[in-house]
């Protein structure tokens, strides 16, 4: 089977063609870097995305602080992760890089603060 993809690994957005069957990826073409190859293979088997959102802050300068996953999480778990993130809050002061939720829903990714507050 052939699938045409636009790589989202970086803003270049290379047009990638993947040939695959039920058991394996046969070839990846059109990518201009290693990350593109990796992206295409994951996209066929188990698509993942970085997740960026905010978390409530108690007693901070702002009502919320931005957070992100420190590695991509399975695309199909995006909304479940959002639910978990929206159910917690963090006390000020918040440090950049501070782990807010460890190993969110067993994905292996931590949710970390992306700014101070």
């Amino acid at each position, binding site marked *: 089977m052939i699938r045409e*993809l*636009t*790589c*989202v690994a*970086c*803003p270049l*957005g290379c*047009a990638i063609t993947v040939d695959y069957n039920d058991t394996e990826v046969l070839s990846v073409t059109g990518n201009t870097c290693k990350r593109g190859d990796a992206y295409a293979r994951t996209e066929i088997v188990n698509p993942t*995305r*970085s*997740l*960026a*959102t*905010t978390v*409530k802050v108690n007693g901070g300068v*702002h*009502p*919320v602080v*931005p957070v*992100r996953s420190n590695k991509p999480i399975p*695309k199909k778990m*995006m*909304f479940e992760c*959002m639910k978990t993130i*929206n159910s917690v809050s963090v006390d000020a002061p918040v440090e*950049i890089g501070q782990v807010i939720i460890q190993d969110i829903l067993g994905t292996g990714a931590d949710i970390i603060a*992306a*700014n*101070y507050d």
Partner: protein
Amino acid sequence: MINYDLVVIGGGPAGMAAALKAKECGVGSILILERAETLGGILEQCIHTGFGLHYFGEELSGPEYAERFIKELKTTDIQVKCDTMALDISENNVVTAVNKTDGLLKIQAKAVILAMGCRERPRGALEMAGTRASGIMTAGTAQKYVNIDGYMPGKEVVILGSGDIGLIMARRMTLEGAKVKVVCEIMPYSGGLTRNIVQCLDDFDIPLRLSTTVIETHGKDRLEGVTIAKVDEKLQPIKGTEEYIPCDTLMLSVGLIPENELTKNVGIEMDRVTNGAVVDEMRQTDHKGIFACGNVLHVHDLVDYVTLESQLAGQGAAEYILNKQPKETVYVSTTTGTGVRYLVPQRVNIKNPNDVKLYFRVGRIFKNAKVVLECDGKVISSKKKVKLAPGEMENVIIPADVLASMNESGVICVRVEE
């Protein structure tokens, strides 16, 4: 009157990178003036990731990208005044600014770097019938509401314009539980990065309707819906294609305008296409000692490129202040050939001893085309491109040896060949 070697107007990614580079190049006293309460500019509300892939080789959020520079600034003696509004720049580089603690400030600078960024085109700039119901806002305003102020501006959203901020907000609103019904784009192509269409719209099955616009808004106090319609080649609505879509929020992502009020007041020559100043390869304007970089010069897609360009401006300002500019200046204009909408810089000093990178945008989508660079009528390079789109800034390099061999009355031209 206070004296500084260099005054940088704007403390976003452009201003910070320019100031740091100027410091590295040996400039003595540097002052950054920032209108907001903190440094970082618009990056502070751009919480999505994808920043820094080129420059740092990692994927950061906007605030994290800004933080790298804020941290570095703290290790220098560069002065920063936040909450400070620059009002005017005089003929002889006196910057007038105002804030709550100092009152009115007059700052004599040897050089000035303009790094004021851009703002969003508002509703008033569009021909759209309807009332002034609440719920109509630019995508960037909505981004601030959600990401900084922490509340949702609506539940059912229509987005007009497929610029990157609109696409990013389509995903953001969806993640927070809103229903984004459609993104309408008046042009036959999207103005955003392809990767954003994939990961912000396709991932969430949000439809993108090309050659479609909003012709009317409905609702008295709160927006109740919009009428959308297809447009013809002249971008005029086609009768009979109208469709009513109920929604409580309309977000506009219909273009960015460089904030050049200060620039124009000095009388600096402007480029009608970029809406920014006309500059040379070190980003110096036609007013000696005034430089411009980042989105105030031309709107960029990627902050990484803003950083690189601003470092050039910082270096240029340092060379000006320290009297290290090339001894001779012979400007050759860069001209846009077929398919190229604009070029920055607009002129190049052929006595500059380094390679010069020209940034440009194409006027429409090209597939399997070539980007051709011509100097004095000779083809210098011809680079194959699978795809060229107006939403994605491209660049081409003039090698130093080519520049050195150029005619004083020569021409540099970039064009697209199909």
